């Protein structure tokens, strides 16, 4: 018998994923949509569709379009609101082994806090992933994610409101991710997710208007992978908490690249649309790769590309001291 390979991931505060392959918010609904095509209980975690305090109808259409090596989406956070999400799905989630990480969005600190409060203690909810890249109407249209002070403030407020493990998702649309990542860490986040989509637009075929109904969309897919790698590379060196990478993962090499720049886990997003079976296959391939190189844990792959470190990476992400 071959020795077991340890694929488990400790994201802190008791959130231990069975393996480091998650599915990304917005690409996997509430976990039930792909039905029999995907065995969800094999996944390392599921980040559900962005959930807000009140129901949102979302943006005008078209909402999605393919671009070279990627796609733009501007769904506009269509969702039935946190209470409806809990009522409709949490009973199913509670029967699953896979940790359900509820992605939370809001327009004000109070929104985020209230959603977190309502999710706290709900069986089936394993953690919260804060989407702080949506417009902060309370502060005049600023995104929480592009300002270290605002990012820290919303993180700290949610931290006080819930005991659930707290992941905060970074936006790539910033000049320097490091002060923002540090502010979120200091505010009490358990882990970071990087990256959210890059802001972009597409032009309608008649060139008389932008293609998307909302003009702006978020770019995802293989096209964003180099940007995601760079931001994960910078974030993992700036903070001690674990970083979950996301951005254009389509095969095992992508997973290994993100681990190499210090991520402890990866989320698969856009690639699910083309191949819903990819995330589960990546788990098997990662395990096979561990066996191939004789690693007892996938953690041997973490941080190998980072500048020289004083010690080996810890279970909880990478410890790096410049």
């Amino acid at each position, binding site marked *: 018998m071959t020795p077991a390979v340890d694929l488990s991931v400790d994201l802190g505060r008791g959130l231990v994923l069975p393996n480091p392959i998650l599915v990304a918010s917005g690409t996997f609904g509430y976990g039930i949509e792909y039905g*029999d095509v995907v065995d969800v209980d094999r996944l390392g975690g599921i980040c559900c*569709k962005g959930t807000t305090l009140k129901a949102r109808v979302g943006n*005008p259409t*078209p909402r999605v379009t393919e671009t070279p090596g990627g*796609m733009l989406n501007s769904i506009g956070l269509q969702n039935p609101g946190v209470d409806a999400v809990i009522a409709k799905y949490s009973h199913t989630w509670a029967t699953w082994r896979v940790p359900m990480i509820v992605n939370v969005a809001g327009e004000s600190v109070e929104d985020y806090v209230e959603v977190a409060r309502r999710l706290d203690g709900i069986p089936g909810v394993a953690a919260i992933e804060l989407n702080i890249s949506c417009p902060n109407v309370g502060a005049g249209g600023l995104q929480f994610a592009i300002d270290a002070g605002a990012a820290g403030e919303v993180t700290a407020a949610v931290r006080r409101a819930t005991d659930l493990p707290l992941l905060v998702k970074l936006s790539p649309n910033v000049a320097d991710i490091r002060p923002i990542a540090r502010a979120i860490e200091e505010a009490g986040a358990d882990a970071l997710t990087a990256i959210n989509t890059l802001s972009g637009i597409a032009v309608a075929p008649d060139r008389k208007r932008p293609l998307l109904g909302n003009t702006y969309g978020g770019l995802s897919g293989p096209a964003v992978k180099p940007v995601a790698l760079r931001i994960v590379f910078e974030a993992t060196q700036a903070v001690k908490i674990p970083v979950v990478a996301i951005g254009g993962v389509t095969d095992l090499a992508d997973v290994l690249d993100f681990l190499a720049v210090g991520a402890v886990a990866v989320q698969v997003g856009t690639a699910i*649309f083309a191949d*819903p079976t990819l995330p589960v296959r990546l788990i098997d391939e990662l395990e096979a790769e561990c066996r191939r190189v004789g690693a007892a844990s996938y953690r041997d792959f973490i941080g190998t590309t980072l500048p020289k470190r004083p010690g080996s990476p810890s279970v909880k992400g990478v410890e790096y001291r410049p």
Partner: protein
Amino acid sequence: MRLTAVELVESREILPGQWLQSFHAPELASGSRAGQFVHVRPGDISGMVLRRPFSLNTTDAATGIVTIHYRVIGRGTDFFTRLRPGDSIDMLGPLGRPFEVDPRSQHLLLIAGGLGIAGVRMLADEALRDGKRVTLLFGAASAREVYPSNLLPDEVEYIVATDDGSMGHHGYVTDLIAEYETWADQAFACGPLGMLKVLAGQAAGRRQRMGVAKLGRKRGGGKGDVSGSAAARRKAFLQVSMEQNMGCAVGACLGCVVAAASGPPLRVCREGPVFAAEELDWETPWR
């Protein structure tokens, strides 16, 4: 819904830029209903991250063959035209909800605008199999874009309208509705949004014009069916098959919505692609 590798059997350009392709897909051929669709993955060529949705144009359980009919509009559809017999491709389906025909309906009116024929084509086969009479009203810009009649079952009454008058009625297909709306028990349409909007308006006024009772309403009323349910759709005079840019096609990404008459936007891939006309908001200027 299954993910299956299917093999291309035949491929031909039936109209300029429009292709009809047959695939050997026994599970889809026997387990699908008219109005449903498949989400097809372009090959592993760099740059294309999304599948392409196609209506199931025809299915044949006996031979295990399904066909799709599409126009080449970009890199994905262009890729599909380059497939050769024997090539394998990945289909996710059947997806979405089918047309719902009231068992009492004997006369079905199918209305297709251009490539919209692919959305209603399979319903003609299903309806004939169930012993119903089918009339297809087909609209196109000109004679060179008219769907070949030899691709339709002989039993279908086929009426053509062209914008330029080069074949059949000179004008829009919607001009022909008046002649058929007393004959038809139900109507099923697929095509450009403008066409569907006119049809929805005509259908909404039909009851008053004709003084007909709503199909399926028992004397004394009773509880109405929930909007969007199969039972409610079965009673609707007009059902439409909608089109929208699509991401996942299983209801996860909320990319492919259309505006609802009431409530949140509806997913074309999940609540649709077939809707009763009255479920949709035809005034919202969403494209």
